[in-house]
């Protein structure tokens, strides 16, 4: 019969020392971590109820003024020792250490109620978000995007001219020309080593220089941009924002003057590393983005090769990856969709210059 207990007494620290306690016929053996062992005959022991709630057995031995003391709370060991103490145990009543059943049940019921509430909310929120998103007019969406842009760009520097910004603008116009939607796309290039791009509701799209620097061809960049355009057009960004902020905060943001909605967006962006989309949304954006590329006469293989390379990147996970489906699988799906597509003419940009411009810009991102 063995347990652990705290031993107090002369030569031991005032807050006690942990020791292994073993009970055998006639002796209680106390073994400290440093190898010291004490065999205490049961006949030496004085017992009383102890512990902060009276459910431990306190044993004392040695001289009466500065005794050694051992506090044992394991109910099985307590009972074993009590059995050996026999008549000297009379009057020592150790409180049962099983919590009252009613308390256990109450605690469990509350726990289940919480879990049920959380599950219900999770299931319902999807429908609620759908309902809310359908009722938001496009003008609101555009305003929402504009209002939350500063929060997204916070901590980075926007690049407004140079090869990188010009190329993104040009590519963006080329792709947007093929899209029939009520949105006007505004392209922003932000200095950051993050391999990421972000689509805000209403057509504000931010491309980080880290992404441009990682793309090996302009087609690869175009692939990501087409993907982001689809997030806007299919209102994925709006949906993500409604889900992240709640409808009321969103309303405040649109109508202006609601103090902390802006900081909430900042919090959302910082904590989630951008807006999170579901796997289906990502797949839709891939599929329709690829169709958009082909419509614009851009080779879709860039999209596939970019994701393949992302998948190979080991070490620090690029931000784009963390929320997106497994990149290899995506690339495979894109390649399947590409099969039999006509060969497109390469894009007419001086890509090495663009990449150099993107990687030259110093990183000013505030890491979180």
């Amino acid at each position: 019969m063995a347990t652990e207990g705290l031993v107090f007494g002369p030569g031991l620290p005032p807050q006690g020392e942990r020791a292994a306690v073993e009970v055998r016929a006639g002796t209680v053996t106390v073994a400290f971590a440093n190898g010291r062992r004490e065999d205490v005959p049961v006949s030496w022991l004085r017992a009383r109820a102890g512990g902060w709630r009276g459910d431990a057995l306190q044993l004392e031995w040695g001289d009466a003024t500065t005794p050694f003391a051992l506090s044992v709370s394991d109910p099985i060991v307590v009972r074993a020792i009590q059995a050996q103490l026999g008549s000297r145990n009379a009057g020592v009543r150790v409180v049962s250490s099983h919590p009252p059943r009613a308390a256990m049940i109450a605690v469990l019921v509350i726990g289940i109620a919480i879990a049920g509430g959380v599950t219900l909310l999770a299931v319902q929120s999807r429908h609620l978000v759908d309902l809310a998103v359908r009722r938001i007019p496009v003008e609101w969406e555009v305003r929402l995007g504009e209002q939350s842009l500063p929060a997204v760009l916070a901590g980075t520097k926007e690049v407004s001219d140079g090869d990188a910004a010009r190329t993104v603008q040009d590519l963006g116009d080329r792709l947007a020309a093929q899209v029939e939607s009520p949105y006007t796309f505004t392209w922003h290039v932000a200095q950051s080593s993050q391999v990421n791009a972000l689509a805000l509701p209403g057509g504000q799209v931010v491309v980080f220089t880290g992404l441009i620097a990682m793309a090996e061809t302009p087609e690869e960049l175009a692939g990501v941009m087409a993907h982001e355009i689809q997030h806007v057009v299919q209102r994925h960004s709006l949906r993500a924002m409604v889900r992240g902020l709640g409808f009321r905060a969103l309303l405040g943001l649109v109508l202006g003057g609601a103090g902390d909605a802006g900081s909430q967006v900042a919090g959302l962006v910082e904590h989630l590393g951008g807006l999170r989309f579901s796997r289906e949304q990502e797949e839709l954006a891939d599929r329709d983005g690829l169709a958009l590329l082909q419509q614009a006469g851009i080779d879709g293989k860039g999209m596939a090769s970019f994701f393949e390379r992302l998948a190979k990147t080991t070490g620090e996970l690029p931000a784009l990856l963390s929320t997106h489906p497994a990149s290899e699988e995506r690339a495979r799906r894109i390649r399947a969709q590409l099969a039999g597509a006509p060969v497109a003419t390469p894009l007419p940009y001086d890509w090495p210059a663009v990449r150099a411009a993107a990687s030259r810009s110093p990183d000013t991102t505030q890491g979180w």
Partner: protein
Amino acid sequence: MASMHEVDYKIFGDDMQYVEVELDPQEAVVAEAGGMMYMQDGIAMETIFGDGSASASSKGFMGALMGAGKRLLTGESLFMTVFQNASQQKRSVAFGAPIPGKVIAVHLAEMGGDLIAQKDAFLCAAKGVSIGIAFQRRLGVGLFGGEGFIMQRLQGDGWAFLNACGTLVQKDLAAGEKLYVDTGCLVALQPSVNYDIQMVRGIKSALFGGEGLFFATLQGPGRVWLQSLPFSRLAGRIYAAAPQRGGRGRGEGSILGGLGGLLDGDNG
């Protein structure tokens, strides 16, 4: 224990203190949601259900549910926040005590790995320390002990930080040594200390002594922590002096009363 995070810390301030915890890369601390004062760049915050200790997750789903129910019962938030150093350098994060008083650091391994504290005492702890609930089983202590039936149980081998109101004192009781304590002044104790309630003798001192009808009896062996000012006592004084209660503007001993208030400038 490998799962316990060893943190370095420094306590600042005199009577309203805060603790700054220095984290090596990948080290983490847990705190009640809302306790953070500041943190350096590179520390990642994550809100978790429960306390993030291994023991909480190994109990499975039912364990998590029980934990949630218990935390709700104590009036605590269901969630805790983990602050992890995600950078490659040492980084600090600080937690401020929500009440005027002292912050103390307790190394749980030195205490035998187990500490019982009053409900609001917990400030933060190294990740790996389990922050659970323990129910008092003695009816008398539960009803009249000042803490109710529910106390916090900190288990593990790392640093834990407690805060208490007023001055905090640590006392070591030898085996059998007794200490009588006002029920509101107990902050924490080692589980080996026997904690019971005793009624004040002589009804006169109970009625006029202002100490209440009961006090706590602590009997060694073990270490106990006491606070000089139970927060409820401070709150009572503040409430009594609050303007809504007719305590407006009158400095201690001032006979000017309302007139003096004209000159104060803090009347808005």
